[in-house]
């Protein structure tokens, strides 16, 4: 058995590398002269994680080992693993990118992701450790009808995981393509195969260690970059920011964002504006709605909740959240320097030219700091940051697949399909592995099918469903005596459906009429822009002419995209949902769907009283507060 596993791990490794190295390369951020370097760094990191998986695979014998590493992870280890699970490519590359493009608003965006852990720490982590076993549904099923609550719980877990997983897969595919030029489909398959080999052979033990390794790499890479950015300023924040706001690239970006409003502003005012709110978030209600989804959604994310079952006691669960908050918060403070540093040294327009969303800010900054595009060190640093980003995606995806397959195998198969029967430990592990294969294969297929989908919308949806369905149900069953099966079934359904439904009629989808109009506007403005570029091109000042040449190239791209948009939307009048324009103006449904989720749990619990659930309240409440009956036998 062990021999066979070793062979399979080796095969997975070779397969993933082969896939990654096989196809012809398109143009990525890494120049083709240095692509071998990127692959060497990738191979080193993959090799390390594969070795860890191999060691871990020997330790996975029971369902408890597979789902929760036998409850034998320490608080500090779990804290690093939570950080590894949570700091997805969206937060690593996305927030640094947002700061480089929009300044203050990007940094403000990062705060909600940290504040979310206050909810987890104060209300969720310890009770979950004391009551649950492997999954979120264990908590819901405790004093309710196990069959019904497990079914709705598993459905919601699978919904949240699928949205989040798709976002990671799409984001990962695009990222790897942009960085190294591997085809989108091939990158998605490589991420999927690697992740599957971790989870399948090493279960939670390997997943935890892959997440820890990734978090350490991510933090190390960021600290090194920040040191390089900040040292020249003598570690003075005002000196660094003075230089950022005084930079002409930053000032030009603000002028471009503000448009006509900027005509009477001085260069100093434009630069300072970069440190003030309002460049990214336009509608206050959107910000608040997103904030709600983040602050309450994190506590309902199944792959984060699952991490609390890997520690032996409530004290260790508490300790792990404190560690996670230190690491995650510290990381977001570092992104302030990464984002502003990228804006100052690389330039917002130059970053956007490689990737419109700004996601390449951190990698391009690394390349600049190492000595630029033609230096060995510059390319080594770019390769390292790219490999870390790749490891980031794989680790997050592994955590998500584990959460989704536990819902499938533990809740639906063992808990519902074979309820009342004895399922042997061997059968449970087998069910878990089969579920992992199914979820993993599905995630690869969805990742390929969802090419071109908006990643931010998918992540927003995952958080909205988690905040509107999972969070009210978990919170109320832990803290409200009257909460019962009817309330949970209603809360899960209403929360999920309202979050998804509101998103489907929101401005996030593409509305062909508006998209065509916007594209036509761009085309109409083209001649005037061409003229001014032509004037600048003729300038005797070499710097002005060089900038004009860049502007011309950027304009070509914009025009090509506008033409493509018009072509894509030709003959269409309605969105995917058959709407000509959005029904609501909200970009994130949280502010409506979260109260709806809570109300449904309250209302249906009161309408359908359940004496048994109320009678068991004392047991639930005593257990979650004291930790009586927490199994310590399996702690290693």
């Amino acid at each position, binding site marked *: 058995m062990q021999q066979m596993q070793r062979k399979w791990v080796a095969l997975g490794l070779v397969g993933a590398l082969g896939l990654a190295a096989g196809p012809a390369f398109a143009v990525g951020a890494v120049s083709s002269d240095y692509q071998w370097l990127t692959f060497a760094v990738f191979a080193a990191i993959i090799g390390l994680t594969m070795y860890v998986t191999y060691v871990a695979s020997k330790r996975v014998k029971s369902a408890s080992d597979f789902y929760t590493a036998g409850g034998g992870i320490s608080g500090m280890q779990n804290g690093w693993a939570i950080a590894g699970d949570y700091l997805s490519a969206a937060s690593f590359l996305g927030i640094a990118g947002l700061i480089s493009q929009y300044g*203050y*608003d990007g*940094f*403000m965006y990062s*705060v*909600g992701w*940290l*504040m979310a*852990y*206050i*909810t987890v*720490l*104060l*209300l969720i982590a310890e009770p979950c450790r004391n009551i649950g076993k492997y999954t979120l549904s264990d908590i819901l099923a405790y004093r309710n009808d196990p069959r019904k609550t497990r079914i709705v719980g598993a459905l919601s877990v699978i919904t949240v995981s699928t949205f989040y997983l798709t976002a990671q897969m799409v984001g990962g595919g695009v990222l790897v393509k942009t960085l190294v030029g591997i085809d989108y489909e091939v990158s998605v398959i490589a991420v999927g195969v690697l992740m599957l080999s971790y989870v399948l052979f090493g279960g939670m033990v390997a997943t935890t260690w892959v997440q820890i390794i990734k978090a350490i790499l991510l933090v190390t890479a960021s600290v090194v970059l920040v040191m390089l950015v900040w040292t020249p300023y003598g570690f003075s*924040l*005002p*000196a660094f*920011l*003075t230089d*950022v*706001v005084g930079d002409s690239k930053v000032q030009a970006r603000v002028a471009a964002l503000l448009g006509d409003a900027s005509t009477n502003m001085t260069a100093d005012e434009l*630069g*300072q504006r970069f*440190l*003030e*709110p*309002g460049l990214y*978030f336009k509608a*206050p209600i959107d*910000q*608040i709605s997103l*904030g709600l989804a983040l*602050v309450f959604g994190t506590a309902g994310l199944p792959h984060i909740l699952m991490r609390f079952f890997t520690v032996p006691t409530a*004290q260790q669960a*508490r*300790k792990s*959240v*404190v560690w996670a*908050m*230190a690491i995650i*918060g510290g990381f*977001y*403070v570092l992104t302030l320097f990464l984002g502003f540093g990228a804006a100052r040294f690389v330039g917002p327009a130059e970053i956007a030219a490689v990737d419109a969303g700004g996601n390449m800010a951190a990698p391009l900054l690394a390349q600049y700091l190492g000595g630029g595009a033609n230096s060995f060190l510059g390319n080594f640093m770019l390769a390292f940051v790219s490999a870390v980003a790749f490891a980031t995606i794989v680790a997050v995806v592994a955590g998500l697949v584990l959460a989704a397959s536990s819902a499938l195998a533990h809740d639906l198969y063992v808990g519902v399909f074979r309820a009342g029967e004895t399922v042997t430990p061997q059968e449970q592990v087998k069910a878990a592995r089969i579920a992992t294969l199914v979820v993993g294969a599905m995630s690869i297929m969805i990742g390929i099918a969802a090419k071109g989908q908006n990643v931010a919308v998918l992540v927003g949806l995952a958080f909205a469903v988690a905040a509107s369905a999972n969070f009210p149900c978990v919170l109320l069953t832990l803290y409200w005596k009257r909460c019962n099966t009817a309330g949970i079934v209603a809360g899960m359904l209403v929360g999920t459906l309202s979050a998804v439904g509101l998103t489907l009629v929101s401005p996030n989808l593409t509305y062909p009429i508006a998209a065509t109009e916007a594209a036509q506007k761009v085309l109409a403005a083209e001649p005037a822009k061409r003229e001014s570029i032509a004037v600048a091109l003729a300038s005797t000042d070499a710097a002005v002419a060089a900038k004009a040449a860049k502007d011309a190239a950027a304009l070509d791209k914009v025009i090509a995209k506008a033409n493509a948009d018009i072509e894509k939307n030709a003959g269409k009048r309605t969105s995917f949902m058959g709407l000509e324009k959005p029904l609501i103006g909200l970009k994130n449904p949280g502010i409506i769907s979260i109260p709806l989720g809570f109300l449904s749990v309250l209302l249906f619990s009161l309408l359908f009283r359940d004496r048994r659930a109320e009678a068991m309240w*004392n*047991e639930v*409440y*005593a*257990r979650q*507060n*004291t*930790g*009586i*009956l*927490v*199994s*310590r*036998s399996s702690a290693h």
Partner: protein
Amino acid sequence: MLVKADKTVDWDAVIADPRFQALHKKKSAFLWGLMAFSVAYYFLLPIGAAYFQELFAIRVWGPINVGLLFALSQFIVAWSVAIYYSRKANAEFDRMAAEIADDVARQGG
């Protein structure tokens, strides 16, 4: 395992235990109070950024303005809340809970 089976624990007696009631009262007030404070403090950030932009733009130290300091203060507050809670829990709540749990373990065999 502390106790062999669920049935050996008299949960109503645990809840009725004055020590549990004391723990419950102390913990509830503390947790929900801290939670309300944290959420309120966090939402001041997006609300301030949306409706008090002039206040946020006031420069304090070189280019550093009120808004940037307030955003940075969110990190300090989040970490302080976490440390404050875990100190309190480690020092008080855990001890109170352990007393009750130990008694139950003794009675349960």
